[in-house]
């Protein structure tokens, strides 16, 4: 049931999202005040501030939001699909495939566009590899999918290690940044926003069925959910969200695992609430983490994946403890 409490949660998350975006736009090597931010939005005069905003901070902030939203959405979907609380966007080896693609690109000196495409190609390859093996006899089960994913992941891990140990020091630095998740090279385009929007709307559209599916496959069937096609839809959509997120920002850890759990612990178990909440909180969490990654040890930057873990772990433990006490 959608109660007032949950409407309140959504409202709060919208406020958090807006504030985190503003915070991100204000923080960085050039200090911009709220007044200057408003001024540069409304004036057409080119200035240093508006240039910094337009060329650096706005794209990066939006990249962080889209990535975080996609990861949290994908995590929530994977947790329903695999009916496993430990499921995260990377559990089926998608990030591993992307990493191998990206690292190989770094090895041959590719950057930007080619790096992204290599990562995306690696992720897609991994999706079809895992599904192909799990689906060998036409009847894939969730357990098969999970086991295949974990094994393929381990395989990618080995390839990543080979690439790391055999590359020059210079390359290893960039590789490590990619592996930990890093937004400094990121760019987003309208297709990314569209994907997040489609994920949000589509997710809300199937949210009632997700509520039933998480209770068990047989029960879902008996309550009229077309489990076969729903699972297929969930697998491929979550995979594409993950593939896109890692293409934008590398494998940023933790967002996809803890954001859905955090929200469930806060009472958003109903997917009609959980899906939009994941997009909002996942997005703002990564925006905030990236702001800190840029400023904590400025002028040096931390990989954002490190910051997500450093904030995420204690916050998650706090919420877990406080709900257990109830």
């Amino acid at each position: 049931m959608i109660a007032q409490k949950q409407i309140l949660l959504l409202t709060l998350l919208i406020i958090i999202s807006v504030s985190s975006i503003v915070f991100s736009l204000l923080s960085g090597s050039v200090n911009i005040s709220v007044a200057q931010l408003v001024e540069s939005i409304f004036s057409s005069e080119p200035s240093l501030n508006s240039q910094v905003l337009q060329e650096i901070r706005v794209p990066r902030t939006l990249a962080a939001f889209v990535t975080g939203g996609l990861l949290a959405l994908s995590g929530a979907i994977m947790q329903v699909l695999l009916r496993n609380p430990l499921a995260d966007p990377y559990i089926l080896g998608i990030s591993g495939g992307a990493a191998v693609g990206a690292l190989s690109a770094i090895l041959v000196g590719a950057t930007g566009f080619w790096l992204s495409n290599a990562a995306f190609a690696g992720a897609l390859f991994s999706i079809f590899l895992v599904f192909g093996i799990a689906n060998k006899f036409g009847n894939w089960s969730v357990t098969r999918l999970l086991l295949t994913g974990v094994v393929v992941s381990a395989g990618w891990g080995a390839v990543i290690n080979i690439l790391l140990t055999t590359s020059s020091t210079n390359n290893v630095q960039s590789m490590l940044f990619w592996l930990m998740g890093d937004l400094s090279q990121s760019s987003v385009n309208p297709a990314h926003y569209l994907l997040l929007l489609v994920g949000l709307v589509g997710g809300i559209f199937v949210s009632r069925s997700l509520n039933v599916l998480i209770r068990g496959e047989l029960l879902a069937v008996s309550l009229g959910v077309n489990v076969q096609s729903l699972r297929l839809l969930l697998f491929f959509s979550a995979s594409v969200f993950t593939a896109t997120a890692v293409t934008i920002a590398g494998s940023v850890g933790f967002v996809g695992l803890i954001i859905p759990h955090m929200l469930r612990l806060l009472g958003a178990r109903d997917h009609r609430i959980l899906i939009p909440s994941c997009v909002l909180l996942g997005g703002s969490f990564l925006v905030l983490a990236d702001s800190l990654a840029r400023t904590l040890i400025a002028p040096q930057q931390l990989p954002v994946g490190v910051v997500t873990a450093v904030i995420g772990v204690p916050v998650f433990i706090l919420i877990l403890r406080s709900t257990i006490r109830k």
Partner: protein
Amino acid sequence: MANLKIQSLSLQIKSKTLCCDLNVQVGENERWGLLGKNGAGKTTLLHALIGQRRADQGSIQLDGVSVYDLKQRELASKVGILFQQGIEALPATVFETVMLGRHPHTQSLLWDDQKDIDIAESALAAFDLDQLKERAVDTLSGGELQRLALAMLLAQTPQLFLLDEPSNHLDVAFQVKLLSVLTNKVAETSASLIMATHDINLAFRFCENIILLLESGESLVGKSADVLTEENLSQAYGCHIKSVSSGEHRLFYPA
């Protein structure tokens, strides 16, 4: 009302024939008991009735349409099943859980209709769970969980109730309560019911018709009084079963 027609149905698991050439017709306001020893195929037959197990031969028709041709949602709005495993104790409230029973009927994407809420609430009340509405499912006892599963089935308002061991985890008082709630519901809505159970006495008391699955794969179908005899039951269960009668009541016990 729903009309279930099972025609020369055969079901097999691996090479074992669970039932062959089964013919049953279930009409409105009928209550059927499904009996047979462990592994005789009671659950398999119920799963076949919701299209989850292919028939090796024969057909299963609901109101003239094969259950394998019906859309999942359409089938779910007509046929409801209580699984033997009951429901899993996940972190969710009792009310959230019983509302899932409304899934096949729900129209709106986001909001819960008052009508669905009312049906769910009266289903909870029917099994004395209205006080536990806000309780977390993972804090319920085994019996409470089973009543919640039954309330969810009631909320689904099916025309054909399929029950797999409905008396699991229930004390005597709730067994009787369960039977009276379901009998009333079936009569009220001109529905019908098939109940798989190990409790011969419960089946005799509650169901006027019986499907008795035998070891050989054959089955006996007919009125309870005709099918539930010492001889038939002893053959079906492979152990000697005797009965005592008092007026219309009959009590079975292993000799």
